[in-house]
């Protein structure tokens, strides 16, 4: 049985449909990359799993093993899952740490709450966690305020907070996008090593396909709120069927930059989204049918799936 099973997740905010019938599965200990341009809905998936989307309208289901459909849970039950079985790391650690409290206060309170430890044990555990995420002199760092730490250090603290209670699933929402290039790889390696050491699954929101290919077990490619291709990382990358995946790949290969250079053209706005395939406006292989009907997800081989009428 899968750890997490998302089925036909649809999210609307105002008149905009941010996610459209997204389905994906995560096995225990698996690392899944969500890839796509900004606005594709990657972060929305992560936030929806945590049920932190605020006033958006959500339908579909998000089933977590031993907990049932997260969307049907009462809020107090959801609160008990957050931090214990589900954790999240944010884009900008500097903004995700409360500036009014020391990092120690925030880490220790997470440890106490989610592990049920007393003050002294929690402090010891906090020191241990800080060491695990590679922070030197953890005692001193615990009494520092977030603004006194570097961006990389802040993100390490966030990793420590997120992993404090050994969650089953870690959601990492572009955890390196606010960091220097030199530190990005360190943080990614840290997150992967720490989740593997704990046997935790991880959903990595990325816009770097190259990184996804190195670090993850499977990939989900999103375009304009829909899954266009998904499957084991080798299948999807070596044998991409969807033209969008191919474009993403060639962009990375061409330039080899740290951030993803978007393929030519732009994602259509929510008002003038095509009736058929959403990628049709930018697709070199678009046919009449692509404009008229939306392609369903088809299985290529094993769990490798794609949504295209005219695949490569």
């Amino acid at each position, binding site marked *: 049985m899968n750890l997490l099973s998302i089925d036909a997740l649809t999210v609307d905010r105002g008149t905009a449909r941010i996610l459209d019938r997204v389905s994906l599965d995560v096995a225990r200990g698996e690392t899944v990359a969500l890839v796509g341009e900004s606005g594709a809905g990657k972060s929305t998936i992560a936030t929806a799993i945590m049920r932190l989307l605020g006033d958006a309208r959500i339908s579909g289901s998000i089933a977590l093993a031993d907990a049932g459909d997260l969307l049907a849970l009462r809020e107090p039950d959801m609160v008990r899952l957050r931090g214990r079985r589900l954790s999240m790391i944010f884009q*900008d650690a500097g903004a995700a740490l409360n500036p009014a409290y020391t990092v120690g206060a925030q880490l220790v309170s997470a440890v106490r709450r*989610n592990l049920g430890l007393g003050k002294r044990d929690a402090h010891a555990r906090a020191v241990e966690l800080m060491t695990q995420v590679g922070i030197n002199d953890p005692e001193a760092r615990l009494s520092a305020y977030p603004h006194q730490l570097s961006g990389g250090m802040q993100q390490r603290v966030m990793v420590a907070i997120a992993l404090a209670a050994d969650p089953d699933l870690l959601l990492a929402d572009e955890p390196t996008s606010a960091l220097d290039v030199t530190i990005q790889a360190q943080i990614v390696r840290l997150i992967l090593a720490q989740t593997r050491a704990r046997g935790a699954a991880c959903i990595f929101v990325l816009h770097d396909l190259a990184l996804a290919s190195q670090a993850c077990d499977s990939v989900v490619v999103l375009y304009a709120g829909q899954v266009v291709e998904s499957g084991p990382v080798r299948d999807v990358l070596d044998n991409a069927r969807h033209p969008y995946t191919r474009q993403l790949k060639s962009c990375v290969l061409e330039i080899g930059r740290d951030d993803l250079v978007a393929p030519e053209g732009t994602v259509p706005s929510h008002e003038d989204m095509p009736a058929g395939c959403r990628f049709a406006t930018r697709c070199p292989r678009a046919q009449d049918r692509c404009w008229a009907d939306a392609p369903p997800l088809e299985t290529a081989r094993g769990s490798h799936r794609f949504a295209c009428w005219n695949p490569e």
Partner: protein
Amino acid sequence: MLRQAFGKIGQTLVVLFIVSFASFGLLKLAPGDPIQIMLGSEYSPQAYAALSAELGLDQPFWTQYADWALNFVRGDWGTSYVARTDIFTYGFLEALPVTLTLASFSLAFAILIGVPLGVLSAVRKDTIFDAGAAVFALTGTAFPSFLLGILLIWFFGVKLGLFPVMGYVSPWQDFWGGIYHMILPALTLSTYFIAMITRLTRATLVEVLAQPYIAAARARGEPGWRVIWVHGVRNIALPLVTILGLQLGTLLQGTVLTETVFNLPGIGQMLTSAVLGREYGVVQAGVMMTATLFIVVNLLVDLSYPILDPRLRDRK
């Protein structure tokens, strides 16, 4: 940081000097010769000169100011002929505590009611409750306090007979009696501040609650009340304290009116009767006490910034 603090204190001293100089100088401009007033209509030139010398009024302006300022600091504020006592006792020891008691009660009311109202309003943004709080905030900030006081007296005092409508009982001597007498005046004075704090809390908290660290706190399993009160409200402390410091003047001027409505013997009553009796020394004392209070409190507000926001501690 220490240098900054000393700079602030220096600025404060300069402002205090200007205020004292202005209140001394302005009241020198007041019409009427104080010696003539004291001596009445029949007096000899010798008596005039003698009294003038005794009061130091024959000295040059700067000497008079220096004498006055020195005496002021020493607590020698002159004599009030209307109250038949020295002004320091009358103003500082008797009137100021009344005003401060009223002001602190009102401030406590304002914070204890205004912050929760604003928090609820922010959390239930765009609901009927929020709209109601907005209407209250608007009406409350525009409604004249002295009218509200009279209405409260009429309703709670006269119609319902629940509260005493006049007079002052010091809560330092009779705690419960003092509170009982203070409820209507404090409610009168604090309505404006409750409304203002509600408005400010809502506006700033809505912004804070949209910050990533709020989502992060929820993501690590903090329950809703803790997210709002510990992570949200803690971060609006700085704007709240700043505005409260700046609005202290409004609070003090509100006490003047409230004291008159409820017949409380504070600085407001002292000032009003001094103006009617043309006792310039008492007006000076009232002005100096009010201004000093405002300046000192705002200095404290400035100095408290690094405590309220750790990010300000490391600024050079």
